[in-house]
């Protein structure tokens, strides 16, 4: 039987899901942070009408806060528990990258399923263009997941994880976050955010081309 990278990536994704199902560490941490952020914002904005710009910003900040704890579930745990060597021997780097990416994307999907209704209930109703919302959610999720997967892999290789994590992810996430907020603002106002969507999907294209390549360089010493 011959192996291919997609089958290997799926095997890694299934392994991670099985571990997550048994330990429930990544999802619980992600939900805790995301829900706490939304509830906190909802409490602070109680009885007030938030501007669309603020609504858009707070939505993506809540998603980002929720996704950050999930970062540790990918590569940092593998390095800290010493299982990264097994993973290096088992699959080629591109499969490891996309396998971990799929796992992070699953967490993003689950987190969104919990946060979106909660946000609509506690902070502000998510109105406007639903087609634009969906595209922003898909494109933003792809980029966010790719950046977090890549940064998790880079950070896992070093001893100074905390400082490096912030240093690496900030310049990669900030432009994405600004584009997503601009796009979400337009979607909330009922306009189709063509330019922000172009930016998000262009960013996604660059990340998908470069992410796996950069990962291959850092994954094996």
């Amino acid at each position, binding site marked *: *039987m011959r192996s291919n990278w997609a089958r290997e990536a799926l095997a890694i994704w299934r*392994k991670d899901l099985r571990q997550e199902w048994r330990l429930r560490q990544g999802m619980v941490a992600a939900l805790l942070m995301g829900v706490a952020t939304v509830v906190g914002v909802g409490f602070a904005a109680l009885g007030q009408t938030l501007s669309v710009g603020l609504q858009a910003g707070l939505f993506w900040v809540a998603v980002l806060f929720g996704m950050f704890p999930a970062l540790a579930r990918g590569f940092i745990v593998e390095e800290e*528990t010493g299982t990264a060597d097994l993973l290096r*021997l088992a699959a080629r780097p591109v499969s490891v990258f996309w396998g971990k990416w799929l796992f992070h994307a699953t967490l993003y999907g689950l987190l969104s399923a919990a946060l979106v209704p909660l946000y609509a209930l506690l902070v502000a109703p998510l109105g406007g263009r639903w087609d634009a919302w969906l595209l922003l959610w898909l494109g933003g999720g792809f980029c966010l997941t790719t950046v977090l997967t890549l940064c998790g892999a880079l950070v896992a290789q070093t001893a100074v994880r905390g400082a490096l994590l912030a240093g690496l992810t900030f310049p990669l996430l900030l432009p994405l976050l600004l584009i997503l907020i601009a796009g979400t603002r337009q979607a909330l106002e009922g306009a189709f955010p063509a330019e922000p969507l172009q930016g998000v999907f262009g960013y996604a294209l660059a990340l998908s081309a470069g992410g796996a390549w950069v990962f291959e360089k850092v994954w094996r010493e």
Partner: protein
Amino acid sequence: MAQWTLACHRLGKRFGERWVFRGLELELGTGARLIVRGANGSGKSTLLRLIAGLLAPTEGRIELRANGRPVPDRTRVIGWCAADAALYRELTGYEHLHWWAQTRGLPSDRPTLMAHLERFELAHRAHEWVRAYSTGMRQRLRLALATYGDPPLLLLDEPDAGLDPSGLKLLQQVLDEQTRCGIALFATNRAECAAWGDLALELGA
């Protein structure tokens, strides 16, 4: 049957300012069984990790050839077992082997996997989480992973650690079988295992 060759040319590894070894030359062919010996810190594990592709050499190069042709990504065709290699504590022995088989493109049907686990006397505990395994059972599982799919190059870093007499006998069988169609490198300082190799490399000498 492919003729395998492992070649190390002017191999050296440095951590910081300290050279673990330098200028190492090694060439082994199918049927070779090399025992690597040396004091603690002499570089036995480092050598095996370099050959496995888990570390990059500071200088020199390593090549695995099949019928004279270099194998492009040797990391994924070798078998590697180290006493300190971590396993996924919340997966079962069977799930480990199934995952390994799927990522390496090896047969992953249940009868084949169970037969392999049976060979390492793990079949009766195959569906228990690894965290419930004893040290010796974990070592047997590492050996089961390393040998699954008959890798052409088997790297064993102190594989005798934690094994009982039946485990040691099994290890000897593994080495015998490996040298029929591949190459085995075996790092140990255990006196009773010294006779298991037909070649010896003393590091730090």
